[in-house]
């Protein structure tokens, strides 16, 4: 519905512009010029607005639907009694949620809570570690032109290797400590650090880093104070975005977790995997739902934190 209406509205713009040109013709050859202008503006409108915009809206709608429908179906199914066939039946039951959350009488190997808590704790640890390490690295990369800067830049992005490979490397290199919570923490931090460095770096680059710093210092703020009270707050949005990405990706990381996790408690990704292969569909659906609920809540909280104090809210 939106596509055609919007193109109708924008169509009137160039048409009225062409009219106003005709109303004020130049004495020599003015008519030819306005005719040309009309032709040009018509063809420009036709391509970008009439076709491009509806096409883009259509593609985005299909993609978003394709990605979100399974999530919604999973969430809804977790309250259904039977999931045989396409349409789930037997609403509303909390039986599966009870089992997954550990209140059930039978079924899955264990409840999801310890694994979930374990995974979230490690993901949070990895995220905090990334803030402490990634933000200064991003600052240095954005602010200074130093020897081997390009190498540091490359090294900061290098851990974008598949978690499986890093997992094997960990277990082989540290046979005694690789399979531990510490191994998971280090791995999550390393695996996801490029996302933190890249988002924060682009945040630093999009502000006038040097000028802001020099303004603050000329006004009497020492360098540490400038960084803490001016630079970091200006980069808050990038840091929050980096936190969201590193945290969610770490909490959901399977490959690396599968290679490195020692098994007590099972991290959430492993727990999900075992349930999907062993238990009924609906139980795992409930488990997945728990995970998505937590991710959505965390993103909302982080974004609220990030938006507070930003000018866009007041515009």
């Amino acid at each position, binding site marked *: 519905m939106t596509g055609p209406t919007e193109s109708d509205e924008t169509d009137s713009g160039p048409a009225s512009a062409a009219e106003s040109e005709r109303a004020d013709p130049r004495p020599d050859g003015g008519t030819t010029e306005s005719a040309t202008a009309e032709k040009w503006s018509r063809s420009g409108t036709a391509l970008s607005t009439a076709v491009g915009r509806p096409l883009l809206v259509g593609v985005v709608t299909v993609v978003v639907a394709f990605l979100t429908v399974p999530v919604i179906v999973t969430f809804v199914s977790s309250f259904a009694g039977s999931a045989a066939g396409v349409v789930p039946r037997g609403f509303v039951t909390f039986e599966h949620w009870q089992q997954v959350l550990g209140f059930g009488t039978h079924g899955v190997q264990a409840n999801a809570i310890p694994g979930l808590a374990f995974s979230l704790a490690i993901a949070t640890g990895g995220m905090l570690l990334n803030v402490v390490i990634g933000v200064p690295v991003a600052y240095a990369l954005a602010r200074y032109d130093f020897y081997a800067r390009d190498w540091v830049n490359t090294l900061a992005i290098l851990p974008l290797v598949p978690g499986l490979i890093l997992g094997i490397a960990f277990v082989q290199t540290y046979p005694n400590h690789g399979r531990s919570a510490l191994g998971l923490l280090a791995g999550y931090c390393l695996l996801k650090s490029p996302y933190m460095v890249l988002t924060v770096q682009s945040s630093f680059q999009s502000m006038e880093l040097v000028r802001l710093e020099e303004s603050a210092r*000329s006004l*009497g703020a020492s360098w540490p104070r400038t960084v803490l009270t001016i630079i970091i707050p200006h980069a808050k949005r990038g840091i929050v975005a980096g936190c969201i990405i590193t945290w969610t990706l770490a909490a959901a990381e399977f490959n690396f977790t599968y290679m490195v996790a020692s098994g007590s408690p099972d991290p959430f990704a492993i727990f999900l995997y075992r349930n999907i292969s062993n238990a009924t569909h609906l139980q795992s659906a409930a488990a997945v739902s728990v995970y998505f609920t937590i991710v959505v809540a965390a993103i909302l909280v982080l974004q609220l934190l990030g938006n507070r104090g930003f000018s866009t809210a007041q515009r």
Partner: protein
Amino acid sequence: MSDVTLESLTKTYGDETAVDGIDLTIRDGEILGVVGPSGCGKTTTLRTIAGFETPTQGRVLFDEVDVTHVPPEERNVGLVFQSYALFDTMTVRENVAFGLKMQGVPKAERRERADDLLAMLDIAELADRRPTTLSGGQQQRVGLARALAIEPHVLLLDEPMTGLDAELKRRLRDEIGDLLADLEVTTLYVTHDQEEAMAMCDRIAVLSDGTLEQVGPPAEIYRRPATPFVANFIGSSTLLEGVAENGHVDLGFTELPVDAETDGAVRVAARPAAFELDEGQIAADVTDVTYLGDRTQLAATLPDDTTVTLHADGIDGYRVGDSIPLSIDEQRVHVLEAG
């Protein structure tokens, strides 16, 4: 407020010399303009005074105190950038009060002084807004208020009006010029716009290639340029080669009754206004005609093949290839030593 003195200031980056032995004093309470083409060292000079560059050689003195190695945050210098560089995470009032907060001024007094400054700059009603919601001109006022709030030894303005449109620039220029004169703030005003410098500054320093070409009041810089560079950079000039003897300068095709300090080869700098149309015996060929509305700018070739720029009133129907009779007003030329 105080004098700022640069003593044989030199700054090199590797093989590049950005500033080459500048001696310059910004007098207490004056507005000193620094003009020059890009890369002439004007911004490096400003940054050295602010403390963001350490000179390779030479000293920076505030009154009699050597501040060459004092860090920026201890110099009490006000900075205003072309790009404003306001703190977007704070309100306008918090921006202005930031320097006072760093000085440990109590909150109530900070607020009062910030509001006073905002009122002085005619933007009191913007105190609770965020900088990102303001127009360019408003942001520049906030930047100026923020820099003035700390009552700086010296105010450094780095092309503060370059991003603004012509009309606003003119208005802000007059207003800020008056304000700075009233407050008697020692000011260094870096700009590439010589008209702006002429209008606002008590004195102008012309830099070229890291060296100081001339420093003096605007009228002196314009009327008596010390070097061919200044003659060309400040307003346009035509440089004519000639020989001086006995109170005359012989240009080959004509003689001017002007005095040179020494006899021998000289250069004569002539402003467009020095060439008068209609009455002279010098025959020049028009090579270019540019209609500018209230006047027409002509380029013409003199008998010695020098191209001169001159102005004619309105549209007088000049065409390329015309031969026009010129004379040179000897009151409006300035003799330079041969370079």
